[in-house]
């Protein structure tokens, strides 16, 4: 465990040290580029305020992401069993990914107000497609021999799906989960940026408007930490639910 996280930690430490030295030696104005120590100081001093906004962001991201995963799962099953629906719907799903968020986010706020709904919808819009593609790709990777074996035993399509297709898609499911998770926090912040009462997005906007670059960066640090925590949780879930994880680690 330690050796695998050592290289990124060392690299991050080197980058931060370089950034700190540059700010001090070049005497850069903190308004333009605060040093990491300044960002850390701003984060500590404003931890209560940033924490409250972060909680709001976490709630929106968690709700949107969970709904997105559930929705993608249901749609993937439908598309797996109904090839004609797949042919009809996939172009629409692809087209949905070409809509610029920068144009859609303000419209969502206009249509649905400053509440939870527009932000959750934006998170779903951003995270649904990679999740759906990962699941469909996982279904396709089911070894034909497994499906054939079950069919020879008299299993129907549903039974084959439950016993062979779904377990075969497990690695793709977690790959999709990781990709979507990285988008979830960013999409939430973007939605909050477009219009919200609470959340890291609106906090960043307010800090920027008040020329507090240190607070903007402090919120960015928290956003990155949230994404890393979410990825860590998914990794843990993957390990805990892996077939034989108990038997192998007993």
């Amino acid at each position, binding site marked *: 465990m330690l050796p695998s996280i050592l290289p990124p930690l060392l690299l991050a430490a080197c980058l931060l040290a370089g950034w700190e030295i540059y700010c001090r030696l070049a005497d850069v104005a903190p308004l333009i580029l605060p040093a990491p120590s300044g960002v850390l100081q701003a984060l500590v001093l404003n931890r209560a305020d940033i924490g409250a906004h972060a909680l709001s962001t976490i709630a929106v991201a968690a709700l949107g992401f969970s709904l997105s995963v559930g929705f993608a799962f249901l749609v993937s099953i439908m598309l797996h069993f109904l090839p004609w629906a797949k042919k009809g719907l996939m172009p629409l799903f692809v087209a949905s990914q070409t809509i610029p968020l920068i144009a859609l986010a303000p419209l969502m706020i206009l249509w649905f107000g400053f509440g939870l709904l527009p932000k959750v919808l934006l998170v779903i819009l951003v995270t649904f497609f990679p999740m759906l593609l990962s699941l469909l790709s996982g279904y396709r990777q089911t070894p034909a021999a*497994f499906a*054939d074996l079950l*069919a020879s035993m*008299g299993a129907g399509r549903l039974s084959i799906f439950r016993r*062979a297709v779904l*377990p075969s898609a497990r690695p793709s499911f977690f790959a999709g989960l990781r990709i979507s998770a990285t988008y979830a926090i960013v999409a939430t912040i973007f939605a909050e940026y477009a219009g919200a009462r609470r959340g890291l997005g609106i906090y960043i906007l307010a800090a920027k408007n008040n020329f507090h670059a240190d607070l903007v960066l402090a919120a960015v640090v928290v956003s990155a930490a949230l994404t890393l925590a979410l990825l860590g949780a998914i990794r843990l879930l993957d390990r805990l639910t892996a*077939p034989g994880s108990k*038997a*192998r680690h007993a």
Partner: protein
Amino acid sequence: MLDLRGLSIGGADGAMVVRDLSLSLPASGITALIGPSGCGKSSVLKWLAGILPKDLDAEGQLMLDGQASARPSPAISYQPQGDGLFPWLTVAQNAALGLQVRGLSRAEALSRVAPLFRSFGLKGTESQFPDQLSGGMRQRAAFLRTVVQDSRYILLDEPFSALDAVTRLRMQDWLVARLADRPRGVLLVTHDLHEATRLADRILVMTGSPGRIVAEIPVPGPPTQRSEAALAPLRDDLKSLLLENAP
């Protein structure tokens, strides 16, 4: 008795894979089906198992004890090339899979397979996963899954082809012993003439383009009492037959 009558299989490109093939399988003993690669041996097995790919056209009749039968039939179990063990299931769950598909609850299926682990040389592996087993052990687990379904006929598609020479010999002896305990009618597809002459009571020789049976050769004596010296001339005859009929 299993009777396959007039099986013809057409490829996706319109070419015939198998033409008018008929064979019978007695309720006990091993019948080997040998032939060159691509002659349609596996396609015959897949048709009998009811899993021939949909892009192939097939026509033929399956009779079980004189009655026409649908496919897949609960009277027939199929073991694919390799072992086909599901990596996410334990060995016990893999062994119980066929019973569960055929309607038994998970607990019932597991209790049905549990007493068989010792006689199959798998005692202690019940809660292990397939990747924790050796090649030979995996084949035993796959065969347990096939046998426990209580089908009267078993289709084996090159079951030992992925094993090393020593393990293969051990598994061949082991298969003969298991079938002595639980007699079944076995149709064994193999490329290996040694395997066919060691295990089978009779050998069906197929040739390709399109696939058909050109000879049915009985193997004298029970498998446990055959000497290498007695089998050598038979293998020479089989080799000559295959070469004569090579496309």
